């Protein structure tokens, strides 16, 4: 079938039309090989422009479409869909960016911008000639979800998914559900006991017929891709295999033990906030003078992040102490008070009102804790504004430490091919727009595994991750883009470089029968896992890996036409 290419060039109002001479580019496009139709539109993405594309596909019997306008990031799906409804395979469409790549960056050079637009359109036409029709891939999704970690985030996510009717496999390393919140005494800012929050949730999870809780169980291996993960669980000596469609990671974090700092480990009455809450649930008898030190091991060189809610935790314990005995003298030595969150500022003001002293210290002059034998009895801090040391007697010293990433994070990251950030926490796909997802499909994150989050955020993220995980399971199948890489088995030299570089674990070894009858080991791409990043293509030494829609042939055709001079 002869090629019949249609080119649509967008003015984008004055965004492109004000700089590039669009009619001239349209005229030029008509002279290009195999182009049977070209037009300029005020806005190609408007209904006028879209219907024009559909009409011309029919009227001129077009079998390739090029749109030169803005960025594929926002508009490619729209134009592809439009081509599809016009009766053309959606992968026979090529997008040329003459806004971000041309008019916006050459605003003051109209003539050269027009020349460049012509070049870009010519390259697009060269590429579109070589495109071949592709079909989207669909795979079935197992309607079950694995939730790793039974803390507040995991419990929330498990209950949400189970109530929607999906089978949930909840894996917890410890013998009890509840996670870190179990150690917490009362929660800010309501001062409710943590038991009141946890117990109903735990009993609901344990009694739900759609949830099977695997306690004292660890994850041994994860294989597969969205819709079809196979999981290997390890309990005591035995192992168990599971098949799930999605995974939610809610492994949480642990408390920093500030060994060697401020007499921790040296004095018996120096402890972290969480240790204090574990030891003193309500009876604060004999604690008449309390010193707390905030930012212990947080916002320092080796741990640059802020613990997010440690300030409030300290304030909470101070308020509880003060409520028990209003005569208690409490000094909180802090670097800044970070009381951001719903009603937290009021909580902070309440503490101020109750007469809890807040003393700022500088990181250059950290406080000192002195004592005799195994008891600390005095705190000393340099007051910067007054320019002198302030001393306070104390019965107990509480160190406010941040959460630190779980010990298993690296291992889990390797197992599931999900990224871990510099600070050791799991790294989400996008900090703002995709906070509970990973770059790999079908795996989601909730709670402190991602960053220190307080309870309400953990719950919110548990809901969010559950909602996200429910999407592929509700649809029953996942549709993935056809632009994935493929290996030509005859050319593959089985060096394994592509397997190493793939960030999604989409490539694996496979047997291949050669025409001669021999079987050899070759790399094989699983198209459902492939995201089309192209790293494997670049890494292949023998040119065996090609990316659909970006083959060497297509890209070289673009390169070859680049240096033809536009008239």
């Amino acid at each position, binding site marked *: 079938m002869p090629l019949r290419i249609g080119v649509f060039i967008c003015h984008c109002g004055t965004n492109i039309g004000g700089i590039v001479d669009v009619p001239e580019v349209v005229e030029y496009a008509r002279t290009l090989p195999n182009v049977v139709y070209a037009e300029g539109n005020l806005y190609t993405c408007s209904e006028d422009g879209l219907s024009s594309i559909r009409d011309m596909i029919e009227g001129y019997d077009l079998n390739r479409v090029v749109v030169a306008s803005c960025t594929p990031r926002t508009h490619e799906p729209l134009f592809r869909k439009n081509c599809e409804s016009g009766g053309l395979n959606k992968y026979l469409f090529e997008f040329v960016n003459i806004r971000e790549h041309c008019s916006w960056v050459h605003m003051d050079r109209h003539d050269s911008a027009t020349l460049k637009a012509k070049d870009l359109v010519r390259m697009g036409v060269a590429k579109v000639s070589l495109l071949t029709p592709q079909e989207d891939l669909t795979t079935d999704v197992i309607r079950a979800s694995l939730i790793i970690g039974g803390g507040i985030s995991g419990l929330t996510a498990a209950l949400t998914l189970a109530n929607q009717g999906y089978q949930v496999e909840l894996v917890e390393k410890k013998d009890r559900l509840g996670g870190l919140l179990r150690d917490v005494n009362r929660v800010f800012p309501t001062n409710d006991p943590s038991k009141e929050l946890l117990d109903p949730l735990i009993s609901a999870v344990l009694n739900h017929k759609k949830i099977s809780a695997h306690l004292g169980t660890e994850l041994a291996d994860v294989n597969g891709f969205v819709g079809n993960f196979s999981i290997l669980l390890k309990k005591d000596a035995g192992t168990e295999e599971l098949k799930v469609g999605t995974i939610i990671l809610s492994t949480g974090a642990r408390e920093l033990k500030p060994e060697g700092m401020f007499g921790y480990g040296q004095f018996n009455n120096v402890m972290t906030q969480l240790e204090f809450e574990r030891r003193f649930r309500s009876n604060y008898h004999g604690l008449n003078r309390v010193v707390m030190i905030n930012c212990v091991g947080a916002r320092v060189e080796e741990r640059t992040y802020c613990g997010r809610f440690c300030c409030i935790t300290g304030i909470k314990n101070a308020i509880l102490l003060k409520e028990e005995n209003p005569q208690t003298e409490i000094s909180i030595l802090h670097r800044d008070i970070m009381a951001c969150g719903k009603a937290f500022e009021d909580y902070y003001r309440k503490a*101020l009102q109750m007469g809890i002293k*807040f*003393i*700022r210290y500088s990181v250059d002059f950290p406080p000192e804790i002195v004592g005799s034998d195994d008891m600390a009895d005095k705190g000393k801090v340099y007051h910067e*504004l*007054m320019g002198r040391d302030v001393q306070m007697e104390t019965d107990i010293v509480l160190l406010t430490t941040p959460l630190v990433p779980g010990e298993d994070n690296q291992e889990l990251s390797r197992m599931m091919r999900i990224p871990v950030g510099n600070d050791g926490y799991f790294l989400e796909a996008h900090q703002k727009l995709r906070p509970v997802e990973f770059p790999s499909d079908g795996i989601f994150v909730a709670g402190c595994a991602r960053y220190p989050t307080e309870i309400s955020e953990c719950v919110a993220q548990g809901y969010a991750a559950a909602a996200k995980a429910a999407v592929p399971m509700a649809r029953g199948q996942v549709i993935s883009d056809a632009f994935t890489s493929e290996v030509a088995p005859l050319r593959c030299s089985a060096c394994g470089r592509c397997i190493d570089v793939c960030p999604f674990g989409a490539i694996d070894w496979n047997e291949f029968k050669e025409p001669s009858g021999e079987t050899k080991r070759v790399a094989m791409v699983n198209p459902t896992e492939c995201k089309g990043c192209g790293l494997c293509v670049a890494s292949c030494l023998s040119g065996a890996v090609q990316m659909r829609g970006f083959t060497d042939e297509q890209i070289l055709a673009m390169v070859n036409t680049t240096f033809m001079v536009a008239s």
Partner: protein
Amino acid sequence: MKTKIKQIVLENNLNYCLECGKCSAVCPMLDFYGEYVYDRSPRGVVERLSLDPEDIEDEEGLWYCLVCHECTFFCPSGVNFQGFMTELRELLLQHGYRNHAVFCHACGSYLMPKKEFENFQKILEGGKTGELLSVCQRCKKNSYVETLYKLALWPKAKR
């Protein structure tokens, strides 16, 4: 007395201080006395007294404030420094710390801090107006009324 000071500190929300320093920035101390001293500034006083109100009885630094309300007006956190200063001085005077205060020449009631008084005298270069400063409002009013009364008693012919 120490407990009493603590009570005044709490009542006037000195604990609310966020250490922002707006109070010291708007304090007319620099204009009036010609120098800025941290220990005399609102922030300095608030910091120290909310921490440990010890050995302040005879301290001169507490007797510079003009009780002008500027700092209290600008405080973002609600520290009532003006109220605190008034109450604290009242308390100090009650306990007999009178070295740094000036009292009405006529009736002997508290007038203003000595430093403030001296500075006013310096600015006004003594004279009649300066003299007027050393008498409290009530005494001034009373002497005025006295004059009026005398005038009223004068025989009509002489008026």
